[in-house]
């Protein structure tokens, strides 16, 4: 029966080519525009590390004296001071933990035809790779001993390994970062997500770093951040040593807590730490306060999905509604004109349900064609997005979910629009039309 309905639907669509074309066009435009903005939104709001996003936490400490403001909605600073990050990294609680900051160097090699170039780097603890499930292709992270000695060792990304060493096992090779010779200890697989969720300070969709160096080098090499530093009081900072001892916020920190008990324990640890620091003269405030957000809460808190994008998604769904109203009007016209034919069918024994279903199948076909055309239009739109905003390039694509949902949304929309006309036409009383023929 279904195939028969499809056949009937196809004939009906071909009988009124202009109206069919207009309807397909309307649904295609609606879907095209909606999918363009929805795809970018979808890529932006995607869970970057699905398997453990609820177990990774970014702690925040309210270290400011009473009466000072930061820019966050709950007045907690986004980043940590060096001393706090250092302390939390040594804490006995938390499965894996890593403090980190973004920095960079000039990378150059002896006897190489690779021209010196600037490369972003992340100074962090070895747990970084465990926290974010990054497998090693060659070698491993640096050892605790190397970290303690502040050895100039480096983990590089697969992309950089390809560029410098042609993809071979480069463990043990050397290159210079500024004027220090570093030895490669590991080559790590790339992140599977475009989102730099662990450090959203300078844009959540910038490229991931290609170099990872031990955190202990920050103090030894006087490394400064290439990201944000935010202070809240006047401090006389004349050197990197002053900065490390200051109340400036400039580090990110992530910890893996496997269950609620661990989260609670970690919270208690943070309170205890603050109380202890208060005795030594820091945290001049009445209420000690901390934040502990998991990955998705954190991204939400940091407004990673841009407002513009949310506005666009809302507007494009309203646009889809207009397209639907249009299709509804056209379907009404089309189906009502067919009432006499339906009258005959009803007289010959077709039930209301059958007539209704037949028309729903017909509008679903419209939706399918429109949806497919809409995908093509959305590709055009996304191409425009990539052209205008390079930064969105990795985001302005449709993944499988989006490709599949386009026709689903289109068909659902068409069925909603077709419901009323189909219902009207199935109520046709055969007698009225049989009389005039």
């Amino acid at each position, binding site marked *: 029966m279904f195939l028969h309905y499809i056949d009937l639907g196809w004939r009906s669509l071909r009988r009124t080519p202009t*109206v069919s074309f*207009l309807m397909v066009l*309307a649904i295609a*435009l*609606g879907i095209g*525009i909606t999918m*363009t*903005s929805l795809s970018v939104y979808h890529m932006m709001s995607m869970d970057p590390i699905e398997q453990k996003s609820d177990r990774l936490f970014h702690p925040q400490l309210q270290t400011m004296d009473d009466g000072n403001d930061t820019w966050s909605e709950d007045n907690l600073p986004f980043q940590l001071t060096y001393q706090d990050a250092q302390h939390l990294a040594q804490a006995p609680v938390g499965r894996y933990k890593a403090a980190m900051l973004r920095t960079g*160097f*000039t990378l*150059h090699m002896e006897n190489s035809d690779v021209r*010196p*170039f*600037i490369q972003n780097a992340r100074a962090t603890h070895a747990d970084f790779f465990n926290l974010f499930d990054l497998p090693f292709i060659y070698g491993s992270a640096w050892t605790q001993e190397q970290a303690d000695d502040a050895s100039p060792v480096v983990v590089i990304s697969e992309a950089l390994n390809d560029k410098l060493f042609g993809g071979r096992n480069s463990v043990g090779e050397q290159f*210079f970062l*500024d*004027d220090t010779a570093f030895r490669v200890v590991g080559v790590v697989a790339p992140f599977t997500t475009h989102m730099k969720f662990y450090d959203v300070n300078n844009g959540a969709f910038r490229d991931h770093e290609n170099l990872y160096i031990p955190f202990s080098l920050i103090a030894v090499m006087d490394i400064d951040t290439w990201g944000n530093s935010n202070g809240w009081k*006047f401090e*006389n900072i*004349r*050197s990197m040593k002053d900065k490390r001892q200051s109340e400036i916020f400039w580090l990110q920190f992530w910890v893996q807590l496997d269950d609620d008990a661990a989260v609670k324990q970690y919270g208690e640890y943070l309170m205890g730490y603050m109380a202890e620091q208060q005795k030594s003269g820091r945290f001049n405030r009445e209420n000690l306060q901390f934040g502990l957000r998991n990955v998705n809460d954190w991204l939400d808190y940091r407004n990673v999905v*841009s*407002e*513009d994008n*949310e*506005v*666009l998604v809302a*507007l*494009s769904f*309203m*646009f889809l*509604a*207009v*397209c639907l*109203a*249009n299709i*509804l*009007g*056209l379907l*009404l*016209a089309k189906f*009502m*004109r067919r009432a006499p034919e339906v009258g005959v069918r009803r007289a010959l024994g077709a039930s209301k349900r059958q007539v209704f279903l037949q028309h729903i199948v017909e509008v679903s076909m419209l939706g399918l064609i429109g949806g497919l055309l809409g995908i093509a239009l959305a590709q055009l*739109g996304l191409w*425009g*997005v990539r052209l*205008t*905003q*390079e*930064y*969105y390039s990795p985001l302005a694509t449709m993944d499988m979910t989006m490709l599949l949902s386009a026709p689903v949304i289109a068909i659902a929309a068409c069925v909603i629009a077709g419901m*009323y006309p189909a219902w009207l036409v199935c109520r046709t009383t055969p007698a009225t039309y049989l009389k*005039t023929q």
Partner: protein
Amino acid sequence: MLEIKPIINALRRSKVGAVLLLIQIAITTAIVSNAAFIIQDRMTYLQQDTGYPEQDIFSLSVMTYGKDRDLSQQFEEDENMLRNLPGVVDAAITNAVPLSGSGSASGMGLKPAPEPGRSVRAGYLMADDHMLNTLGVTLSEGRNFYPDDVIVTQDPNKLPKVAIATRTFADEAFPEGDGLGKMMYIGDRPFKIIGIVDKMKGPWLKDDRPDNVIIFPYIKAETYQHIIIRTEPGQRAAVMQTIEDKMLAAYDKRVITNVIAMDEDKRQYNASDTLMLRMLMVLIVVLVAITALGIFGLTLFNISKRTRQIGTRRALGARKSDIIRYFMVENTLICAGGLLLGCTAAILMGQQLLQRFSLPALEMQYVAGTALMVLVMTLLAVIFPARRAAQISPSVATRSI
């Protein structure tokens, strides 16, 4: 005269078509007025005057890794080399590039710390006496730096004693408008405002105070440094092309990156606004087209349903113009209802956007303008089908009864 009563009666009997039309007009009005307003808002932002001859300026970044030369001296030589290049007007080493989206800002105190007092935040540039000429801005009051105002040092304890500020900054710090010659403080270190520039944007156009800019005569040569260059009109592309080689020829243990024209830099910084602008424009155009098409289609449908009725009216003596007028009035009525609903929706939507997102409050003239445009569009979309209806021959009414 306008037969409003019979029209309303007729509409009551076939509600669906009218309601559909009404909804379309309402949503269209709501979306278009808000989108047009956002577009206008972004346009003003994107087209603002930055105070710089953007088409003649470009910048580059230098990352030095060699340790065998004195950085300050190297940069001094670089500046001289660059200033003497053919096609170059002037060049200056700086800590930050205006309009680029990256730089430094700090609160400048009216009292020395730790004395309590107001402080005014400003993006600051650190460069020598060539900076004003390089940026192509002129002083409206006071004087430029003298060469001996400029402090070239690696010692963090030496700080500049004078500064040039924008009018906006000076007026915010000294609301009387007499900022020239006044003292201000970075922490506990004093400096004097010796010159005022009327218009000069800082590193961040999206800052809540993009006009608060201050220039210090100070060069602390860092391993990562920016250089701004202004060229003769039309010479920029040629100079940009050879600049990396020229810089590396002067000293090769460094990397030259980010060689970028100022207008391009600004474009990249603003790319998300341009994107929003374009998306909204596409949305509006397609939306208006679709709505017009919808009205067109629905009127055609209404007419085809009423062919016999129209024929009867014509047979009873109605002129063609009466028929056309009938449909025009009918549509205007529906449109008026839709506009009423749409304007309310537009205002509510504007309030929602204002509350949830950092968008300014919707201005009423956008709602009014959109309503007018939608009305005109509706009438245009109706004329053709109405004229077709008027062509219906009276004989239709007498057939097949």
